[in-house]
């Protein structure tokens, strides 16, 4: 039986890791995501940009203690896409 196509934005390990973390918290900064995902700065930065372009996360750049600080927060569209992704995976596994 054919596997329903998964959201290509989320079907990537790092992007899925970022969104899974953001689903459980209200917001997280770049360093926290870096620490939890174990990704490189460059790769994390690229994947955050892709999620932002897809409208799945909201990115706010600011300063914390005079240092640049990037804070990420899941958007309602991102949450909806994540729920759809999880449902698609579960459907596949339960077939």
């Amino acid at each position, binding site marked *: 039986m054919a596997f329903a196509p998964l959201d290509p934005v989320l079907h990537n390990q790092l992007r899925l890791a970022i969104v899974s973390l953001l689903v459980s918290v*209200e917001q997280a900064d770049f360093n926290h995501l870096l620490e*939890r995902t174990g990704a490189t700065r460059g790769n994390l930065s690229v994947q955050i940009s892709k999620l932002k372009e897809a409208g799945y996360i909201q990115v706010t750049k600011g300063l914390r203690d005079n240092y640049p600080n990037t804070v990420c927060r899941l958007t309602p569209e991102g949450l909806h896409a994540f729920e759809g992704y999880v449902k698609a995976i579960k459907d596949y596994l339960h077939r």
Partner: protein
Amino acid sequence: MDTPMTPEQSLRLIESMMSQAKRSFSRMSFYFLLWGGLLTLAMVATQVWTGVEPGTRYGAPWGVAGLVGGALSMWYGARQSRQEAVLNPMDRIINWLWASFVIALLLVLFTTLLEGDDPVIPITLMTGIPTFLTGQIMRFRPLVLGGVLFWAAGVVMQLVPDAGARTIVYCAAMVLGYIVPGILLMRKENGVRPA
């Protein structure tokens, strides 16, 4: 991290990340250590001063402890919120839990003092609620046990008529219910594994 994933791998990754996020609580050991220390000192000071002039009740140590603790807690909370790398909904729930406890505590304090009663026992019993729930939310057993200890201490203090014995029970509850869990929590926050 661009290798293809199977649905099983995706699900495992989601579960792993979500479970990590659930463990991301703000640093709270400071509050338990601060209030545990201040309230123990306030109780000892009250007992010492009452011994100097028997029959007189001194509220000054509690007032000083409340003001110092309140000011330091606000300072630390403001500093923490500026530095927090992650904002967890559970942190918000815990903050509101303690805020509602402080409101109830002030009301109990006001009404018991108005009646001329000693507020220490009802406040000790009440202290068990946020301590127990914080421990349950964080899945941190020393705080859960600390909450139970406050309830037990409140009951024992009610049964023990001697003021000196009540002081010992209260201080023991503070040390075992706040300070010891606070130290263990600080070790956990600092990434030190229990021995």
